[in-house]
């Protein structure tokens, strides 16, 4: 079995936003209204001379117990055997319950107006989306099926994003997760996320 997971190292993310751009082009997200499948938060943390910038990439956590799936009334949200949580835009009626249920703010609206804007932005011929829905990251499932990595991982200049299979013991991602260095976000919510973070806030030296 395969169980996909991502590890993001906050120590090496430089905040170049190349992942956002690569994802937007790959998945045709409505960037004109600042909505992305992955987003890098830029925040100042610390006080006095210890203030520093922290770049925090965020995306769908492809939870093993996804609350967005359990609240979806039409079955538009589904989970593959490899753990990837997908949205079928044809089934989605856009009630937004998934966005309310997601603790990771991974969902955003794609409206009829966005599809019209998308035709202009991405091109009439190239636009893949036909109907509105609540969209989110798919771990680039279409690329994985062709043996490629997700677009954000492929393009990451700081190698902050690592992608792997948790059922493969020799995979570096598995080892980082198993060692406890990489931790999930808000594990107490019981969502069992499959995106892990290597913290940058530990005191150094």
């Amino acid at each position, binding site marked *: 079995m395969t169980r996909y997971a991502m590890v993001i190292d906050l120590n090496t993310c430089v905040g170049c936003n190349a992942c956002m751009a690569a994802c937007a082009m790959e998945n045709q997200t409505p960037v004109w209204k600042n909505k992305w499948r992955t987003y890098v*938060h830029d*925040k*100042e*943390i*610390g*006080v006095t001379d210890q203030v520093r910038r*922290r770049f*925090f990439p*965020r995306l769908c956590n492809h939870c093993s117990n996804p*609350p967005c799936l*359990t*609240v*979806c*009334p*039409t*079955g*538009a949200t589904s989970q593959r055997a490899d753990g990837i949580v997908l949205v079928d*835009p*044809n*089934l*989605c*009626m*856009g*009630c*937004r*319950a998934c*966005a*309310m*249920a*997601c*603790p*990771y*703010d991974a969902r955003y*609206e*794609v*409206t*009829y107006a966005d599809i019209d804007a998308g035709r202009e932005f991405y091109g009439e011929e190239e636009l893949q989306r036909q*109907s*509105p*829905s*609540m969209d989110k990251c798919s771990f680039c499932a279409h690329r994985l099926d062709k043996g490629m990595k997700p677009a954000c991982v492929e393009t990451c200049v700081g190698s902050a994003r690592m992608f792997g299979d948790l059922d493969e013991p020799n995979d570096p991602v598995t080892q980082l997760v198993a060692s406890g260095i990489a931790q999930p*976000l*808000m594990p107490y*919510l*019981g*969502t069992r996320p499959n995106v892990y973070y290597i913290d940058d*806030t530990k005191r150094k030296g």
Partner: protein
Amino acid sequence: MDTMSYTTQDLWTWWIALYLFFGGLGAATLSISFLSDMYCRPHRNLVLWGALSGVVMLGISSAVLFGHLLHHVAVINVLNPLVLFRQPHAWIAWGTQFILWMMVWGIVYALPYMRETPSCVKLPVVGRLLEGPFVSWIVRCCQKRRRAIGWLATINGIGTAVYTGLLIQSFPAVALWHNPGVPLLFTVSAFSTAFAYLVVLMNVFIPDPNDTDIRHRFERFGLILIATELVILFSFFNYTLSGSESGYRSAQLLWHDKGWLFGFIGLGLVVPFFIDLKSVIRGWGTRLPTVSAAVLVLMGGYLLRHYFMYSGVYARPW
């Protein structure tokens, strides 16, 4: 400086509060009208007014939700009853079916009374439908199985009222919503507002001196439910004060908001409680205080859902 961020949401706002308010109110109104008709005494006017206004409220509730969907055609996927086998864990799927079948059984239960009401029979299209062979057959079936249909409607009504709370409870990131008190609070509020609505109905629109016993019973039930709601709200206050940052921030928003404190708790619950208490213990010389209290309870019912939706806080580590 803080590594966490705390935000409310702007996706489910006043319109979902309306959906929850009219859904709960309409369903509870139908259930109470039918239970009263089945077990107190047969009451044509109460059933007709209760059923028709209940169905209109459920219609408004559904229309508000439908109007805000992103992809209207895809709603067909949730109207099919088989959705309950495909998505048994999704409360919107259950709620849609409860509301749909509540409306169906509500109209079927009211049909025999509609046929014997001259003002209904005289209506242009409705009159012809009521005299038609199909409706006549339904009326005969309904007369034979009156209680069964009444209970089908009631079960769907209670299901709808409970659903409005379960829906909000299913969002795990927000402490104010994701706790066992929410379905209880919303169910009690749905029935409390429905009793208030029926008190207005029986005092203003269908006043009958012979209905004094039913009116008093509704006032008593309303009073008990307002008291229960106050107890549940106090436990919410206690719960949100500590335990999670999300809950604490929701408490800060709610308990510092004048609309919540004076509008909902003061005017929507405490004032009607004392007016109804006097009504039950000593009575009033006129109907005005009781009707005013009921109107305040109805206003409070909406405010509860409005502030609840706007005060859910997501705590995020970025």
